[in-house]
């Protein structure tokens, strides 16, 4: 035996050392010996079905499948011989016998394993001379076509759907030759991850959006990053003549390791959308008219300067972007601080990550932050107020991978979510009780004086949890496996009164137990925008304002001393007549911020509104200047994902029309305003930022220095106040198919789910006299929306669940605008409503 878990295997007369525990095909792949295959794929369990990988093992008379035979020490393997060649050709002959050979109009042609192997083996007999049975192409999936005739029965699609995606949507139906890989009623629901398209060795599973849009060799491939959620998945954009044709992952690259979700794969349609803003516009005589950049920038600069002159620098507020690059956000905060002259800087990260960050800053010292790979390896996952399967689908896949390896997942959430359906235990806690739950856990697991004012019985009553249930939740953080325990928390925690205190308490528990944590992040660069300094009280790298001298030295410009206003404080200031102008870069507060009417009124009371965006959003409609910006695919930069991983990427296609990257717009505007930034390109911006905020292994070295937060007392009201006029409680959820305005303009996501659906318990539906698909009017104290209903008996009675992000029914309209005193985050998790049938 060889030591160090290496074994020695002889392959084709050469001796190799390979790690123990591999199959022969895995060993061969590692030593560069090519064994043909259809069904084998490293990431899937072996099937042994296609019989292409037949090889000879000395001492075994029959040919063996390399994919299912374990490599053993001393084994002598032959992968090429006359017998093997004959067997493989015979298998190919059988495959080709049933194949339609319609390569002329197959999207897969030239990138097809059946074509390649047929070419490789060359002289294959074609003795099959019976009429081939014409099998249909199935179009019942709106995004994926299934061409049954081309199928080689490798079942990669069936296995990837079951083993990686966990959707179980594709089954091998019937038996024998009539076996067909298809979606069947009663099977799992397709989540449109498109993984079945990627793994198909032939043209059986195809991307319908790509249908006949070009031959694979006509595509240029460029690596990019997904612009939707905080996972930061690596995308390969397939483009032709400067337009995106399709998106897929590239090999195992990136945090997503070859997987994508519906948004990542099918959500690119907005990039080349006809409604993209192609030229700047300014408001003349009440009308938005197209102008050239020079005029637009000059107009903007002149108006901003006038307002600063007349009302002082404090009268301008800025929203950076949880969507834009780190560099754009970095320049944006520098623009606000140095060119405008105040710290009124915020972004939509305020709704999510900022609150969690505030909690993190409340804990001194190190707390281990989990990576996606840590989640994949976890033995235990405790999920509180989060639905990673929908908000961060690749994190959801990591969770499913852990479950497959035997991990225990416990979810505490008032909602029924795709995540809770995977849990080994789901505690349906009372809405709004995520914070009391964490306080109760802290009382159990930490010995902290501040929490002594609470009574366990009161807390448990609020949460609707028995003490033994709390103990079992706490048990997730105890014992030997603590190191392999990951706590996932989401907006259920951060968007709650005293959410920061709860996050801080949770992190102290995590630190004490040696576990790790990860916060779900809904938008791709919430974290990057914060770390770039788009915060009213923090400079880049989360440095406190007291540290500003260091930045002034590098920038050669003054940084105001007084902390700025957060998003809702700015809106309120505008309503109070104090805030006269807004500069909004890549945000759409009218749609995305709670209390739509409040936001609209605030923005319309400002004298001057600049919006820099891709589309004429409801926010842009109100603007005095619209500056068209480049989409993610059209610019270079970096995004910081939910793990804190800073990931650079490059432009793949040129911007549409005259759209420009955000960073370039800001540099040019700064020059127009006489305080010009020196940067000639994005790399110079990045270098300046990295000098100020050092990096270590693609993570920023951040200033986390133990803020002290106000600690809530027992008198705080968590959860809804019952109101007989508004008898239902509406809970917001996330959707796989939406994430911001862009997602509503992506044809792929519209096909995935066309409209919003209000999920409710059948008993409530009956009481209201509605059934699946009927429309209802949902009314809260602040607003109303019309939406169609979907019955779901797993939803708790008297509660409704509605996903955010659909433009046809925006739950943000229903919420108020009250903010948490510590995090200054508006609350938008639950609201009392009434409902009537339409």
């Amino acid at each position, binding site marked *: 035996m060889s030591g160090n878990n290496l074994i020695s295997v002889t392959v084709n007369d050469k001796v190799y050392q390979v790690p123990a525990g591999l199959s022969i095909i895995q060993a061969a792949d590692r030593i560069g010996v090519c064994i043909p295959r259809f069904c084998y794929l490293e990431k899937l369990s072996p*099937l042994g079905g296609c019989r292409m990988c037949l090889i000879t093992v000395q001492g075994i008379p029959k040919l063996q499948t390399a994919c299912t035979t374990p490599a053993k020490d001393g084994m002598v393997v032959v992968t090429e011989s006359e017998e093997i060649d004959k067997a493989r050709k015979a298998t190919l002959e059988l495959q080709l016998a049933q194949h339609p050979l319609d390569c002329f109009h197959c999207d897969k042609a030239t990138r097809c394993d059946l074509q390649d192997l047929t070419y490789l083996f060359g002289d294959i007999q074609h003795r099959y001379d019976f009429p081939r049975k014409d099998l249909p192409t199935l179009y019942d999936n709106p995004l994926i076509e299934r061409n049954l005739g081309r199928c080689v029965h490798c079942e990669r699609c069936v296995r990837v759907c079951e083993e990686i995606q966990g959707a179980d949507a594709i089954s091998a139906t019937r038996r024998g030759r009539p076996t067909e890989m298809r979606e069947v009623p009663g099977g799992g629901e397709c989540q449109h991850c498109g993984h079945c398209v990627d793994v198909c060795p032939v043209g059986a599973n195809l991307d319908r959006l790509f249908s006949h849009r070009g031959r694979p060799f006509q595509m240029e491939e460029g690596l990019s990053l997904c612009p939707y959620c905080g996972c930061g998945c690596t995308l390969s954009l397939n483009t032709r003549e400067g337009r995106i044709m399709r998106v897929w992952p590239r090999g195992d690259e990136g945090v997503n390791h070859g997987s994508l979700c519906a948004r990542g794969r099918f959500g690119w349609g907005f990039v080349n959308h006809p409604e993209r803003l192609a030229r700047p516009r300014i408001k003349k005589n009440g009308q938005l008219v197209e102008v050239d950049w020079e005029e637009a920038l000059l107009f903007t600069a002149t108006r901003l300067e006038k307002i600063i002159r007349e009302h002082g620098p404090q009268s301008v507020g800025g929203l950076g972007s949880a969507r834009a690059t780190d560099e754009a956000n970095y320049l944006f905060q520098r623009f606000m601080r140095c060119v405008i002259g105040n710290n009124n800087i915020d972004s939509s990260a305020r709704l999510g990550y900022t609150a969690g960050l505030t909690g993190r800053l409340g804990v001194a010292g190190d707390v281990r932050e989990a990576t996606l790979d840590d989640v994949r390896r976890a033995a235990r996952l405790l999920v509180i107020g989060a639905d990673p399967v929908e908000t961060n689908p690749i994190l959801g896949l990591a969770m499913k991978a852990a479950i497959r390896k035997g991990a225990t997942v416990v979810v505490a959430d008032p909602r029924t979510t795709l995540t809770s359906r995977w849990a080994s235990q789901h505690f349906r806690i009372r809405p709004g009780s995520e914070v009391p739950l964490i306080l109760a856990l802290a009382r159990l697991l930490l010995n902290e004086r501040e929490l002594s004012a609470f009574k366990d019985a009161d807390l448990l009553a609020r949460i609707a949890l028995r003490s033994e249930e709390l103990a079992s939740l706490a048990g997730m953080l105890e014992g030997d496996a603590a190191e392999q325990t990951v706590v996932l928390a989401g907006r259920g925690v951060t968007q709650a009164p005293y959410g920061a205190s709860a996050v801080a308490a949770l992190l102290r528990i995590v630190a004490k137990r040696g576990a790790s944590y990860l916060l779900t992040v809904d938008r791709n660069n919430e974290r990057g925008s914060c770390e770039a300094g788009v915060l009213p009280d923090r400079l880049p790298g989360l440095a406190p304002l007291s540290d500003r001298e260091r930045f002034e030295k590098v920038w050669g410009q003054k940084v105001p001393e007084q902390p700025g206003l957060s998003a809702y404080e700015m809106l309120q200031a505008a309503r109070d007549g104090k805030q006269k102008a807004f500069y909004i870069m890549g945000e759409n507060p009218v749609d995305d911020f709670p209390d739509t009417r409040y936001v609209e009124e605030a923005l319309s009371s400002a004298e001057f509104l600049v919006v820099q965006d891709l589309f004429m959003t409801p926010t842009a409609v109100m603007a005095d200047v619209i500056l068209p910006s480049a989409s993610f695919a059209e610019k270079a930069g970096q995004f910081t994902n939910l793990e804190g991983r800073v990931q650079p990427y490059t432009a793949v296609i040129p911007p549409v029309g005259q759209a420009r990257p955000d960073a370039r717009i800001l540099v040019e505007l700064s020059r127009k305003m006489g305080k010009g930034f020196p940067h000639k390109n994005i790399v110079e911006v990045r270098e300046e930022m990295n000098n100020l905020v050092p990096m270590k292994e693609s993570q920023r070295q951040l200033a986390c220095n133990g803020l002290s937060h106000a600690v809530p007392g027992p008198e705080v009201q968590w959860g809804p106040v019952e109101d007989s006029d508004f008898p239902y409680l509406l809970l917001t959820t996330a959707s796989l198919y939406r994430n911001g305005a862009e997602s509503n303009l992506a044809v792929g996501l519209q096909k995935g789910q066309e409209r919003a659906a209000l999920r409710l318990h059948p008993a409530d539906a009956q009481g209201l006299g509605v059934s699946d698909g009927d429309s209802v009017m949902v009314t809260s104290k602040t607003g109303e929306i019309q939406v169609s209903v979907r019955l779901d008996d797993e939803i708790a009675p008297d509660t409704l669940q509605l996903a955010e992000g659909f433009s046809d029914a925006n739950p943000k309209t229903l919420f108020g605008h009250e903010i948490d005193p510590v995090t200054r985050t508006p609350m938008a998790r639950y609201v009392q409503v009434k409902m009537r049938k339409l």
Partner: protein
Amino acid sequence: MIVKVLTRNFDKPDSHTLAVYEAGGGYRTLRKVLESWTPEQVVEEVKASNLRGRGGAGFPTAIKWGFVPKDSPKPKYICVNADEGEPGTFKDRHIMEQDPHLMVEGTILSAYAIGVQTAYIYIRGEFVLAGERTEAAIAEAYAKGYLGENILGSSYSLDIHVHYGAGSYICGEETALIESIEGKKGWPRVKPPFPAVEGLFGCPTVVNNVETLANVPLILDKGAAWFAGLGTEKSGGTKLFTISGHVNRPGLYELPMGTPLLEMIEEQAGGVTGGKKIKAVIPGGASCPVLAAHELDIKMDFNTLMAAGSMLGSGGVIVLAEGTSMLAALLNLERFFAHESCGQCTPCREGTRWIVQILERIERGEGTAGDPDTLIDIAEHMAGRTVCPLGEAAAGPVKSFVKKFRDEFLPGPGPDAGPSGTEHHPQVAGQDG
């Protein structure tokens, strides 16, 4: 020479009841073993008896049991393979219908030997009477304390569950059977891991044929030496043969291992119908290579048949008289295999269908001169290159039929051309049906 060992109760009235079984000494062995034998002693006795599996492969039973890891912390299972679907074979059905307690007692004793607490009997769905009687026997055994907690006051406990197949031949393959019990589609698994290590619900599992287990009470009652003495040097006990086809008295016959084939046909089955000559014999169920007339002077045991290029298989002897169309007979068999192919692996899925298409063409009189060689070529690519033995089973008849009766597969009417389908194994529905 008929020996009544396994079938000793078959002729008694109400032979399927516990009362009759007990009157014949039934469950006496179980009591004896639980009182005074260790599991290891049971294994040793079975090993010494030369009992070999009766499902078709003839693997030594005690050695199969020995593959179960002793130190596994997981529960172990025994699955009784009562999914008897091999055309020409109907021995297990008779055991379950006429003496189900023999199988139940054999299951309990074997489970005890392996250290199993839960056993499953997987019965072919079409076996209605066999299923009823097995379930009734299990209920009687529970009522009498032969099953359940602390059997007969010992510290040993066992539960038996009955599970019915849904009509698929492949579920008689042991890993497909396991998948089926788990509630999945009956598709054979890749091996390794073998069921003894990772079987039912991922736990160590032994799958034994009904007839195999029915022998166990006899071995433990009368001793390994007695049992071994009933058979040949390498294979102990008697064997249940089911003789069908063109014979005067088709049926079930219990005979010593190594009984000459011709003696079986002439003396037990009463000779060929109409006094005709024998054209060919399939000696061990549909999947065994056919023996031509000149090969019939042969002893019926595992090793002799293997040496002759065929198999004892499940002991289903199918006799084809002079005048039978070998083309029609093979087409009938291959339609069966094409219909039953699970579709998982390429050679079997595509090969069985192609074979049927060629045979149908020959039958229509549209065959080509190359067809016999193509058939053999397809079969040779299937044999030994599939996930499970079904591919091998489908290939065996093709090779032997075509090689031994080549003329009948050439273009033009053969000497015995006739309609396909014979009375002993009716035509099965087409593969797409």
